[in-house]
């Protein structure tokens, strides 16, 4: 029996429990797979109609020390769903699907590929709406009571949220034996000018174009919650703004689709905050470091034999692109440099 058929058999009892004795699995297709997890499209036929779902299933590996297992990722999506954040409706956490933990959520229809979202003519209207929509969605995520997210990783007692984020970055880089002087310069720059601390919020951790489902009208839902944690809101406010997530449209500083100002306005208005581009510069540098270090550590997953993959290997040669951006942001001659 192939993997899909075996998983379908394992899921059939849940499908009947969920949608009645007449329900059956009509299709199971692998959407993405890796050493840490798989995503499957799961179609269920019920007496009242078809149900399009996605199953995310653990594979044992962890992309980063900070990445969540499926139980915590499901719990984070449930929190967001109850708070009215646009996310796929969470259906069930299933602790044992063929020996691995999994969860099932709704399948949202739309585009997720960043390169298409920033360029396709049919998505022009979506691009105009997306920055403000993403700002409002992020405000809704950050408004979730952080006490409800105590199960997620976060700052130690007495540690600031920004300091925690910086500590995690340095720890990740320290796991790599090869030297990266540009990244060390970035970390030193950040350490030398710590921003004002604010109480931690529930951070999505990977909030950017590429993890958004987008249709002609814009944002449909926020995906990929495996890096959720408690942290400084500046992290999420800048991760989607870094050059790497503009998909070649470097001048459109929010996600390659529009203005950072529209995104920040959407966020600040919805949340009653006043984050400015200037004070977020520190976090933009930190977000670039986060992605640069991720390319380094993901390439090591290939190099260690943990997950042999041409794509992961190639990320190791992408690090220099992000290093150039980091050095450009550190340079006092940068047009947006906030000064010392």
């Amino acid at each position, binding site marked *: 029996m192939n993997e899909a058929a075996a998983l379908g058999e394992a899921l059939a009892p849940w499908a009947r429990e969920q949608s009645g004795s007449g329900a059956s699995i009509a299709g199971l297709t692998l959407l*993405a797979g890796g050493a840490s997890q798989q995503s499957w499209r799961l179609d269920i036929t019920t007496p009242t109609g078809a149900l399009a779902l996605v199953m995310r299933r653990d594979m044992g590996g962890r992309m980063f020390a900070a990445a969540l297992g499926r139980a915590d990722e499901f719990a984070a999506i449930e929190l967001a769903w109850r708070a009215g954040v646009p996310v796929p409706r969470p259906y069930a956490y299933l602790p044992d699907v063929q020996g691995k933990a999994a969860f099932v959520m709704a399948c949202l229809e739309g585009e997720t590929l960043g390169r298409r979202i920033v360029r396709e003519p049919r998505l022009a209207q979506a691009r105009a709406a997306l920055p403000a929509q993403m700002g409002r969605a992020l405000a809704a995520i950050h408004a979730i009571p952080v006490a409800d997210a105590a199960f997620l990783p976060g700052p130690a007692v007495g540690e600031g949220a920004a300091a925690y984020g910086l500590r995690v970055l340095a720890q990740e880089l320290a796991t790599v034996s*090869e*030297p*990266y*002087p*540009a990244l*060390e*310069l970035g*970390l*030193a720059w950040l350490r030398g000018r710590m921003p004002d601390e604010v109480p931690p919020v529930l951070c999505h951790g990977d909030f950017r174009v590429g993890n958004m489902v987008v249709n002609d009208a814009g944002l449909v839902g926020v995906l990929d919650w495996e890096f959720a944690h408690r942290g400084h809101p500046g992290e999420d406010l800048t991760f989607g703004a870094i*050059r790497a997530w503009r998909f070649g449209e*470097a*001048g459109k*500083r929010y996600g390659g689709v529009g203005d950072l100002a529209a995104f920040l306005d959407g966020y600040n208005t919805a949340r009653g905050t006043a984050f400015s581009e200037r004070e977020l510069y520190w976090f933009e540098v930190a977000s670039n470091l986060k992605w640069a270090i991720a390319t380094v550590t993901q390439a090591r997953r290939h190099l260690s034999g943990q997950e042999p993959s*041409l*794509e992961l*290997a*190639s990320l190791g*040669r*992408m690090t*220099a*692109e992000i*290093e*150039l951006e980091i*050095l*450009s*942001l*550190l*340079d006092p*001659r*940068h*047009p*947006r440099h906030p000064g010392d």
Partner: protein
Amino acid sequence: MQDRPTAPELLDAVREFIATELLPTVGDARLRFRTLVAANLLDMLRRELALEPLLLRAEWERLAGLLGNASPPPLNERELAAAVVAQQAALCALIRENRAPTGTFGVVTNAVRAKLEIANPRYLSDFEPV
């Protein structure tokens, strides 16, 4: 001494095969993406074969100057690469201790640019701070 095709000529042949014969037959979108990645990596290797010996030597000179290292550069390519890594590691330690010598930013920027000459020269030439 190996017969022709030379290493760069072989890389070109494999790249051409992937781009013109293999790629058009690949339907699956994710497999297409990885096939393109493979072709791009062969381009990268070709640039590396041509440029890396000179870039590596220049990087050694800059790091030695910055760190006040008076010893002569290793002549052997592999030892030269190891010496560059050792100097980079020494520089990283100084940066972490807040004792980076004057000129560090320029030397590190040159090293990153040298990596991009091979990894992605178009990204490098198109780059503008925004």
